[in-house]
């Protein structure tokens, strides 16, 4: 791993403004780096801004009513000010994306082969004559049996897991430097999820590609990512190396999440839910957004928002009263 990050997101803000309503800050000052070859996990519940961040990186947010500020640099080059033509050269070629729902992100009226070769030809990776061979190779690499015949299939002829494999093949067609996977397995069954995760990991491990894995599932992150960012209400509230983060979470939201998820390997005990709902947030301008749901809230939390500061175990945490004792999982032996 080199010290220079390939992707560097700095103080990213995304604000949605619809007429007649107050502005909604979907992403509120997010900064992170992605280094070559690493796997980065972004965890958060719905509305935490994790998907909006990934769309902002690729410049896929609608122009109208959306304000994006901050900086997103790919190899030192600013993406936020790039022209549409420059972005098109980046999307799919240098940064590729796998979306959550493979049915709605594939074109239903084009064959799988056509959609695969489109990427290859668009970026001039190979000639028109070589394209079908390359496409079949790609399908083969993502573990689709009888790949050559599958090229003529339409998305509806494939199962959910197969479609997600096709999506991955399209994303990897141009050997991108960064693969952003936004909830790639949420729409899939557990056994298929295991297949797809294993595939993603094996493809990323064998190359220099960095992966940003966006998910709500702490379990998926625990097994796959090198570093983890936990997002809440548009900001990163805790980040760190996965072993440290899971062994010693300091932020009360991370701790709450861990204590509220039933675990397969632990028996009995009562779950400790986080009270309230993710909608019960206050604006970061008025203090910590998690304060209304936090068990250790004090008046200090409602003054100004805390900064993301380094904690003892090398993680970073955004909390006025970071917790130090281990998480009680409410478990009986």
């Amino acid at each position: 791993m080199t010290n220079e990050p390939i992707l560097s997101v700095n103080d990213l803000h995304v604000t949605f403004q619809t007429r007649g309503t107050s502005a909604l800050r979907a992403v509120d000052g997010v900064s992170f780096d992605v280094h070559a070859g690493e796997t980065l996990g972004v965890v958060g519940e719905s509305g935490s801004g994790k998907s909006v961040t990934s769309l902002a990186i690729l410049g896929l947010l609608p122009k109208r009513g959306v304000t994006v500020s901050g900086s997103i640099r790919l190899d030192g080059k600013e993406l936020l000010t790039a022209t549409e033509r420059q972005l098109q050269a980046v999307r799919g070629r240098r940064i590729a994306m796998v979306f959550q729902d493979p049915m709605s992100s594939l074109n239903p009226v084009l064959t799988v082969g056509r959609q695969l070769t489109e990427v290859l030809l668009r970026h001039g990776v190979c000639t028109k004559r070589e394209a079908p061979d390359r496409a079949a190779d790609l399908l083969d690499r993502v573990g689709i049996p009888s790949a050559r015949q599958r090229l003529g299939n339409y998305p509806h002829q494939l199962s959910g897991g197969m479609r997600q494999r096709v999506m991955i093949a399209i994303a990897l067609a141009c050997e991108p430097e960064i693969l952003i996977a936004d909830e790639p397995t949420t729409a899939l069954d557990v056994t298929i999820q295991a297949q797809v995760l294993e595939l993603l990991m094996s493809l990323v491990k064998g190359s220099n590609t960095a992966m940003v894995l966006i998910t709500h599932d702490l379990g998926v992150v625990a097994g796959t990512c090198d570093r983890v960012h936990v997002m809440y209400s548009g900001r990163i509230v805790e980040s760190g190396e996965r072993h440290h983060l899971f062994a010693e979470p300091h932020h009360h939201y991370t701790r709450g999440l861990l204590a509220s998820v039933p675990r397969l390997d632990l028996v009995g005990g009562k779950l400790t839910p986080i009270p309230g709902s993710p909608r019960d947030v206050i604006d970061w301008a008025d203090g910590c957004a998690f304060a209304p749901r936090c068990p250790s809230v004090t008046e200090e939390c409602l003054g100004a928002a805390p900064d993301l500061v380094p904690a003892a175990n090398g993680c970073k945490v955004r909390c006025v009263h970071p917790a130090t004792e281990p998480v009680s999982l409410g478990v009986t032996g």
Partner: protein
Amino acid sequence: MLTVRDLRVHFPIIEGLLFNRQVGAVRAVDGVDLDIAQGETLGLVGESGCGKSTVGKAIVRLVPITTGTVRFGDIELSSLEGSQLRHARRHVQMIFQDPYSSLNPRQNVGSIIAEPIRTHDLRQGAAVGQRVLELLDSVGLPRGAANRYPHEFSGGQRQRIGIARALAAEPSLIVADEPVSALDVSIQAQVINLMEELQGQLGLTFLMISHDLAVVHHIADTVAVMYLGGIVEKAAADTLYTDPLHPYTLALLSAVPVPDPVVEDQRQRTVLQGDLPSPANPPSGCRFRTRCPFAQERCAQEQPLLRELQPGHHVACHFAEQLAAERVTAIIVR
């Protein structure tokens, strides 16, 4: 209390423009036996398309039963029709997966919850409103909720409304079809805890249908694993999770991610190849054989029956004993 015997639900596949000719059937549920004792929770797990929701709906008679019996106490639910069925349904209520589409958006919460009370004549006059308020209390919603509409509530709160509606009929059995899977992670635990509390207070019996093995592990006493319309393994929850005997259960358990990097790094995984076959054209013999890593010739010829290998532990696999002997542990249970 609930006994299901050889339940089959087949959906016909119809072809032809003028004469609707039946050309086949989707065998959504194909020979399922279940028993739930009073006050117990049975967890029914499986992946999408395995028929678990159809079993739940068949028990409440929301889909036509092809053959088989569903007996609830002394009531034979599967043979009832019309008003008798409506009366019987008071005892068996359902909680649905999607709290957004299972509540009428144009009815206020009070009237949603009051409807089962009125339908079954459980209270009269002002007592109905009083009962609605009691129910709101018991599911942890403010009393003022009665005058508001479903869109004013979050997902978790709507699921509480759904639970209150199910409780309104004063049932003894509740069929909960994926009650938490549409909810955010931090909210799931609230609803699970609520269901457990209510079970303790009211002595309810639950049939908990879910694809989430961790949730079922937490809440269920007995667990049945379904695959392609049939039950492949059934045992007490703790036994099933520590000593799975069917290769499918083993694969399912090993596929569930655990939010702990230390555990994740040590686990052995059995990753299944391929996809679920079509229930319209299931494989011969053992249904799981096309994806089973241990499949042999016998599996294609002979359908394994659900047999009791250890007391209370049923499994449908020809080679369960051998697999148990040379087992790979799916998870390390602490």
